[in-house]
């Protein structure tokens, strides 16, 4: 398998999601299309209804209008007749005519009256009929047609009743539709029979029919019918639009169900639907004509009403279809686009996954459910295998056998579908047999049907970290051990005073059993004085620590004890104090001892002061003594010297040689004693002189000390070896005396030696300089070395080497006062070396 292994397209979930998206898109489209259709239908429905209503309103209006106007026309005609019936002049004229009085004039008047009416109201003809039915006057004269039976009947009725009689529109025998009114011309005397009747003959064609036919709105099929029920039939009174020559000739059974005219005859009014005389579906409005038996039926073909609605419907449907089709095309395009995008994403995702997997620094593997491992480079190198070596290995082969079952229990929940992922620590066996600790995160991938595909696992090598943790743990254990065994109490406490940690000694210091566990509790009441607590807290806040704070504390039994506190504040990342760690040491015993030491010291100091005062007194006495010696002893010596000399001078001639010798001895003795006294005074002064300790340049001092010896040096053969020497802390004047003494001694005690060698040297060790003056002179016997530095102690005869025996005592006293030491080494006849030590000066040469 190896690298050629095809990574499963992460089909399952993502493809599902993809498909669901497509379905959603499709469903959305369908719903939208349905919605659009529904809306279009509703819109069309509403429009259809509106248009229908519009048509109905139009029909109604037409029907009502025509009915009203037909009624008005009929009324007017009746009015004409009524007018004539009650025309007194006409009646008188007719009476005159009939009576034969002035017949020609009367006839003329009647004729003109009738002609006026005929012309004015556009009657076809007006005929005056004498009682009994004889036509008297015809206007126009051309109207010669005989009176029909219908007219005769009407005349008879009118004469009888004295009321205007109106005919229906009827079809006369000549085949012409006519409407006739008979007005009885009433006699001038009430109660008399009418003098004559006037027959008014109106032609429906002239006025009524055109009026009826007239359709006020543009319409292809609009038609108005004037119908009347006659018996069980309904008669069409007017000419029809769609069939000529039908007036009064067409009739239909009144029971005809779907015929609007029949419906009118049956008393219906308003809007009806049915089929007209042609058998064509129509919509009609029926209106009765007032004061007549007539009905107006205004109708249009249903098709004319419905056609635009249908047209609109088709248009709407077409438009809707267009919109839906466009939507469909759009959705399809979108779908396709998404499809491609998803494909591209899938490819990219696969590539990314492949890249991440191969090049991740983190160890990664894909492991089949039965354990076969496909590892990336990082994982391989972690285990020390090459990519090819690790192929076909199972994770169980790479795991310490004793761990396998436990790891399997970690993986089971994933395989069972209980968990999505798992994380655990796991050991792996490297190719070289070594083991590493890893932190493992794994996730089980499944295919679209939910079958396990492989575990995708990330493996982090934490061997180092684990080792560090183990070491840390061991270090902590060691720290614990040390802390537990401390004699000092250890505590770690929060700023609120809650103990985080402490050791047994802490409890013991506070007077509790060492096994008490105070962690999580507040620190016991500890401070003897509240002020001390304030100081402790302030130092921690300001300096971050408290050092060797000796303070009184309280045990839990109330006893007072002295403790030595050391503590430091531990700050968090934000700089605020998080906790305080410190130690507390029971110092009571030690403090008592210390107090005793202080007391003893004070006592000792007092004793020293007392003794010093005593010594000062003694020194004062000694000083006074020395002063007296200086003054009082020297005077007599001087006198002895002076007067013996004067005596010798006075008796120069008489004094023999022996006497002169005695005077000479006296004088020399006196001089010696003078020197002795001077030396003693010098010795006394070096003990009392105030010290001025400073770094002294010894090279210079040595040269100064050598100056008084020049005289003797000039007369002898001296081999000097004077090395440069370091500086020392000393009193310059006093140390010069030391050098003068040692150097003059060296010169003095080497007189017998030839050649004479004197060496001055020094060496510095640990802040101490040791100066030496070595000579090859007479030396001394080491068994008497201890006497060298005593006052008046001499190892040589004064006659051999002059001196008072005070010089080295003085050297010893000075060096001792300067915190040094002086010693001598020598051998009789071989020479001597005198050495002294001094504190080295701060700055060395």
């Amino acid at each position, binding site marked *: 398998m190896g690298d050629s292994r095809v990574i499963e397209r992460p089909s399952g979930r993502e493809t599902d999601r993809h498909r669901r998206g497509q379905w959603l898109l499709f469903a959305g489209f369908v719903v939208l299309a349905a919605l659009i259709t529904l809306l279009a239908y509703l819109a069309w429905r509403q429009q259809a209804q509106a248009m229908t209503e519009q048509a109905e309103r139009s029909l109604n209006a037409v029907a009502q209008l025509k009915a009203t106007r037909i009624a008005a026309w009929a009324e007017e005609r009746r009015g004409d007749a009524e007018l004539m019936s009650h025309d007194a002049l006409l009646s008188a004229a007719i009476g005159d005519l009939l009576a034969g009085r002035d017949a020609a004039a009367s006839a003329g008047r009647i004729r003109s009256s009738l002609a006026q009416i005929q012309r004015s109201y556009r009657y076809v003809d007006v005929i005056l009929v004498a009682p009994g039915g004889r036509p008297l006057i015809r206007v126009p004269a051309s109207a010669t047609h005989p009176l029909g039976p219908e007219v005769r009947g009407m005349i008879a009725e009118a004469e009888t009743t004295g009321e205007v009689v109106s005919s229906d529109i009827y079809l006369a025998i000549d085949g012409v539709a006519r409407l006739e009114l008979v007005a009885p011309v009433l006699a001038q005397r009430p109660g008399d029979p009418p003098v004559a009747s006037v027959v008014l003959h109106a032609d429906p064609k002239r006025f009524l029919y055109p009026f009826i036919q007239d359709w006020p709105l543009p319409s292809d099929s609009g038609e108005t019918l004037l119908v009347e029920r006659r018996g069980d039939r309904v008669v069409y009174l007017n000419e029809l639009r769609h069939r000529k020559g039908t007036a009064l000739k067409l009739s239909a059974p009144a029971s005809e169900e779907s015929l609007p005219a029949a419906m009118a005859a049956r008393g219906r009014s308003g809007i009806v639907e049915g089929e007209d005389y042609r058998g064509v579906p129509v919509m009609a409005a029926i209106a009765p004509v007032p004061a007549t038996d007539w009905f107006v039926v205004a109708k249009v073909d249903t098709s004319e009403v419905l056609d635009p609605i249908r047209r609109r419907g088709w248009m709407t449907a077409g438009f809707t279809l267009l919109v839906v089709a466009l939507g469909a095309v759009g959705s399809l395009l979108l779908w396709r686009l998404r499809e491609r995008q998803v494909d591209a994403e899938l490819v990219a995702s696969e590539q990314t996954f492949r890249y991440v997997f191969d090049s991740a620094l983190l160890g990664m593997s894909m492991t089949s459910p039965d354990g076969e491992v496909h590892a990336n480079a990082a994982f391989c190198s972690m285990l020390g295998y090459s990519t090819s070596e690790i192929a076909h290995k199972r994770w169980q082969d790479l795991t310490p056998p004793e761990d396998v079952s436990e790891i399997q229990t970690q993986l089971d929940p994933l395989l069972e579908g209980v968990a999505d992922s798992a994380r655990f620590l796991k050991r792996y066996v490297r190719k070289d047999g070594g083991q590493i600790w890893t932190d493992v995160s794994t996730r089980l991938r499944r295919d679209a049907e939910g079958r396990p595909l492989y575990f995708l696992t990330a493996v982090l090598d934490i061997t180092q970290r684990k080792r560090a943790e183990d070491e840390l743990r061991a270090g902590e254990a060691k720290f614990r051990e040390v802390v537990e065994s401390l004699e000092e109490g250890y505590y770690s406490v929060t700023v609120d005073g809650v103990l985080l940690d402490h050791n047994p000694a802490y409890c013991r210091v506070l007077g509790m059993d060492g096994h008490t566990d105070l962690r999580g509790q507040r620190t016991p009441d500890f401070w003897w004085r509240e002020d001390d607590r304030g100081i402790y807290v302030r130092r921690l806040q300001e300096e971050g620590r408290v050092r060797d704070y000796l303070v009184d504390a309280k045990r839990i039994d109330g006893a007072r004890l002295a403790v030595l506190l050391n503590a430091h504040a531990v700050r968090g990342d934000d700089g605020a104090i998080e906790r305080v760690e410190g130690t507390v040491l029971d110092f009571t015993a030690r403090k008592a001892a210390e107090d005793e030491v202080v007391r003893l010291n004070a006592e000792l100091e007092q004793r020293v002061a007392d003794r010093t005062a005593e010594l000062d007194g003694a020194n004062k006495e000694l000083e006074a003594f020395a002063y007296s010696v200086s*003054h009082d002893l020297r005077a007599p010596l001087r006198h002895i010297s002076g007067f013996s000399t004067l005596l010798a001078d006075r008796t120069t001639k008489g004094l023999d040689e022996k006497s002169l010798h005695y005077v000479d001895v006296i004088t020399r003795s006196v001089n010696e004693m003078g020197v002795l006294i001077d030396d003693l005074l010098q010795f006394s002064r070096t003990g009392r002189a105030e010290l001025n300790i400073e770094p002294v340049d010894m090279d210079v001092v040595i040269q100064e000390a050598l100056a008084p010896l020049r005289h003797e040096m000039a007369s002898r053969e001296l081999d000097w070896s004077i090395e440069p020497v370091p500086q020392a802390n000393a009193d310059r004047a006093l140390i010069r005396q030391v050098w003068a003494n040692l150097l003059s001694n060296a010169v003095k005690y080497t007189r017998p030696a030839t050649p004479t060698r004197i060496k001055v040297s020094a060496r510095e060790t640990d802040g101490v300089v040791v100066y030496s003056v070595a000579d090859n002179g007479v030396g001394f016997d080491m068994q008497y070395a201890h006497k060298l530095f005593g006052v008046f102690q001499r190892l040589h005869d004064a006659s051999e080497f002059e001196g008072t025996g005070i010089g080295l005592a003085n050297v010893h006293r000075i060096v001792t006062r300067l915190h040094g030491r002086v010693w001598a080494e020598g051998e009789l006849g071989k020479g001597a070396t005198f050495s002294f030590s001094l504190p080295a000066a701060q700055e060395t040469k």
Partner: protein
Amino acid sequence: VSNPSHLPEILLAEDNPNDVELTLEALAAHNLANRVTVARDGVEAVEYLRRAGAFAGREGGDPAVLLLDIKMPRMDGIEVLREIRGDPTLSRLPVVILTSSKEEQDIITAYDLGVNAYVVKPVDFESFMRAVESLGVFWALINERPPRTRAD
């Protein structure tokens, strides 16, 4: 007290007669001995200079020099020196301390008080003679005396 007829030029304040004799012996070599007046202690020396006490109405002016021992009864040399330097009429008087004391404190004090010289008497008589002779010759004969500060 010797009282020569002519003006004394050296006043020697010295309580020890041996020292007086030896000093005079040394001065005699240059004929200066008869110009010496000796005061036996500090009080006498001061009274002499101020013409007070036993010396009231004495004749003559101030000495050319005062040779002053330190250790004397009643008033020691240091006190005498302090008196003289504190007295406007005597403050310019040449004073030489001639003493056995080599004590450092004495030397410092004397110089601080304005002594003109400090000489330690050598024990050896030869040296003593030379020292005193030199002093006498220098102060009595060579040195120019300060102007008198007081009319006779």
